[in-house]
């Protein structure tokens, strides 16, 4: 029963950690707008955590530049299990318009397993909520599988 309680709670209280891997700031702004009074993700239990150690969901924006890659991987490795990695926007999935640049080493899926992709440039806040809701489900499954 306690295990079920924890799994239920995991689905209801996902905390986000946002990593900017060289993003143009478009997706970052959209992610922030998800937490504003207009879309208020807090009513679904989402909260922006200050430290990767507190997070459940890691949201990565940007095409993963050579400078940011080691930091991104380090921050992701600091997130306690069960964790879920969400790429936001087209950049971390493929590099988008930055593809082929000397400083871009993406896509992110080359280095870590990505759970959810949210496409869009930048995605609408509603799409971000969709993606995070999907990530929450995956998180719950991961917790139940433990």
């Amino acid at each position: 029963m306690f295990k079920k309680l924890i799994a239920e709670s995991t689905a209801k209280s996902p905390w986000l950690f946002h990593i900017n891997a060289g993003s143009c700031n478009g997706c970052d702004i959209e992610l922030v707008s998800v937490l504003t009074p207009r879309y208020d993700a807090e009513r679904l239990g989402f909260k922006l955590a200050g430290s990767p150690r507190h997070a459940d969901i890691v949201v990565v924006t940007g095409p993963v530049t050579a400078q940011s890659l080691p930091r991104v991987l380090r921050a992701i490795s600091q997130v306690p299990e069960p964790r879920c990695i969400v790429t936001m926007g087209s950049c971390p999935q493929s590099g988008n318009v930055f593809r082929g640049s000397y400083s871009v080493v993406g896509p992110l899926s080359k280095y870590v397993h990505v759970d959810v992709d949210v496409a869009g440039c930048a995605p609408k806040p509603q799409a971000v909520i969709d993606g995070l809701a999907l990530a929450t489900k995956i998180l719950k499954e991961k917790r139940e599988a433990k």
Partner: protein
Amino acid sequence: MSIVISALQYLGYILIFPGFLFCFLVGLLLSGIDRKLVAKMQKRVGPPVLQPFYDFFKLCGKETIVPAAASKTVFLMAPLVGLAALVVLQLFIPIFQFTAFSGMADIIVILYLLLIPALAQILGGAASGSPYAGVGLSREMVTIISCELPLVLVLLAVAKTVGSATGEGLSFSFASIAAYQAANGSLILRLSMIPAAIAMLMVIPGETGNHPFDAAEAETEICEGMLAEYSGAPLGIFKLSHAIKMLTLTSLFVALFLGGIGSGIAQLVALMGLTGPAANGLTVLLGAIVTVLLCIVLTVVSISFVHAVTARLKIEQIFKFYWTVVSGLALISLVLAWYGL
């Protein structure tokens, strides 16, 4: 046999009623109401009231990472020490006339015990070996120093008011404070106590580390300071301690300034014609319910409302605010109490 019964009774006190379970439920409920109302005041819907419970149980299910640079024992023990201190503290704060451990502690002990959760956070943060924790704990220490002076002045004012009535000079005993209020009405009705009560309301968010006095736990600038390296269950216990601290401080406010309501409850029970243990039980139950309701109101006024209308202060601004405005209010109260107003 009677030893066993009294031992069981004390165990019940510690684990269930004014102790752990009560603290756990009411503390997290207060925290949830706080989050909901802050959201309401910011024109949002806000999380469900039970959100802190979800957060706590989720954190219990997460992996606990101990940083390589950390001192493991202190790192893992600190949250438990803080939580234990808060539960003990709650046992000593009277619920109107009822105290779990009567005659064993007075205001001075409360003053010391209130420091322990903050010190546990400082110890845990220092043991984690994170530079963010270093910045956070230095700020936390300044916040403690800032809050401590007005809190001591408020307690002195209360002690002087009660003490000059009973002829003791300064009365630090909770029992005499409760008895005085039961006989003469709540302290907040006295002119001299109003500035002290306002000062105490301002001390509450500072002591709990809530907005705008949360420079020590600023999540956006220093990654929640001392909690930066905590994850999983220890983090959950720190969050729980934070929630219980709201309950502790608001119920301290109720005990210090609103104790007169207790005599009203006693009269109500007497009107119902009950006597003996049933009457005692009902008084305690009603007292607890009234205390919880008052704690909710106080949380809304002193924590949620202040959170919604202010932005985070810098650490030197916090220090200045507490040592001038709040201490000034408490001092006025003390001087008035000295002249017996």
